[in-house]
């Protein structure tokens, strides 16, 4: 099992965000589906150990994430947040920074190609990119650390239909070409149906149901 959550609870600012939530994510492409404010992003952050639950256990391939070196975990499991948050500089600067964290020399053309951007983007200032291009730069940057697993938080929420289709194709390609497991957070059940093999549905911080996408979203 890629990830398991066991009776996970988390409060923030006194408010419950996740409540006794147990869920599992097999290898492959999974989706976390739920309405806005249901705790999806918080769940994703737990998988990358950007926060720890108040109660319960999160396991990555069978090991409690609290027993893992968080830096090592995040190089294996890369999270791309909902809103682009790039460093000042060019696309190449950002990808180079990420690759440098794992002592790698980035293959810019390949990474930009995987993220659906042309090689000509390398020298573009990130501030001059559209939101969709920034989002894809975030994906290219995450891939530069050569992660095993990608966590994508609403990767298309800020995009128009055309850009959304393009990012969705990128996600499908990534799984097919690199064999990465992917967990994608989305509020859109249709998107989950298009992309995922496994679906975890939550609402108000609680599990609604989980299972193979074909059965659940039919």
């Amino acid at each position, binding site marked *: 099992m890629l990830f398991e959550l066991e009776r996970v609870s988390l409060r*923030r*600012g*006194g408010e419950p*965000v996740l409540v006794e939530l147990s869920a599992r994510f097999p290898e492959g492409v999974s989706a976390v589906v739920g309405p806005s*404010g*249901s*705790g*999806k*992003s*918080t769940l994703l*952050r737990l998988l*990358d*150990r*950007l*926060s*720890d639950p108040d109660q319960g256990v999160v396991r990555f391939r069978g090991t409690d994430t*609290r027993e893992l070196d*968080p*830096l*090592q*975990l*995040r*190089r294996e499991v*890369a*999270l*791309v*947040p*909902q*809103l682009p*948050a*790039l*460093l*000042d500089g060019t696309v190449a600067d950002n990808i180079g*920074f*990420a690759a440098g*964290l*794992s002592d790698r020399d980035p293959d810019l053309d390949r990474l930009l190609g995987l993220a659906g951007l042309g090689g000509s983007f390398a020298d573009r200032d990130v501030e001059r990119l559209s939101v969709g291009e920034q989002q894809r730069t*975030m994906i290219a*940057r*995450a891939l530069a*650390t050569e992660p095993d697993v990608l966590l994508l938080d609403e990767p298309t929420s800020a995009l128009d239909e055309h850009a959304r289709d393009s990012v969705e194709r990128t996600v499908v390609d990534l799984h097919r070409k690199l064999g990465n497991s992917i967990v994608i957070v989305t509020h859109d059940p249709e998107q989950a149906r298009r992309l995922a093999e496994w679906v975890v549905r939550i609402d108000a911080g609680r599990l609604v149901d989980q299972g193979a996408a074909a059965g659940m979203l039919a």
Partner: protein
Amino acid sequence: MTGIDVTIGEVAASLVLVAIAAAISRWRGAGLEADIGTAVVRSFVQLTAIGFVITAIFDEDSLLLVLALLAVMVVFGAFTARARARHVPGALTPLLIALALSATATLGLVLGLGIFPAEPRYLVPVGGMVIGNAMTASAVALNRLGDEMRTEAPRIEATLALGATSRRAAAPSVRRALRSGTIALVDSTKTTGLIFFPGTMVGMLLAGADPTDAVRLQLILLYVLLGAVAISALTATTLAYRNFFTAAEQLRDRGDGAGQPAQ
């Protein structure tokens, strides 16, 4: 250097300017009259008190008393600066260390290089200026650091998510905070003599000193203060940024949800 006598009557006469300041505030509805009054009373009481303390220390000629006075200044300075750094968790310890280190390093160098002799007459005023400027610089730096960590939280967390250490993720914010803390003194040092006369030089000229001596002493103090300000801002930001992160390299939840990415 010749001394000058200032009578209490002359001090009282200068209050006319304070009255003008208060009148302007009232006329334009700035609402600063009460603050101006507090400032006048506090400055009078505090400076008179420190005047007695300094007289006593000069009379005793005791370096231990000087050290005690400087230590008190460091502690008060750190508490004062903490009020400006209220968005920085656990700011007091970094500020105490920053002020103490900055005072120790600069005064130690000044004495070691033989710029001033180890006498209360030099150590008390120079130490006071060093600690005062170090306090302002570290307060400004940590104030900026607090703002940076709030506004930059999404970018910092996105960098952590790549497997970067908190040190790497916070580096741009720490750099901007350090710059904020030191830039004011650097800028005023650049323009000194052109658009403003610094206080020490003014004081020495008023006291009848030779202008060349006044300028040289002022230069020494400006350079000492530059060092003090850089050391305190660097120390405060380097120690304080860590308090925004947990041991597991997570951005600390401040309980109010501020700075945390949206769910």
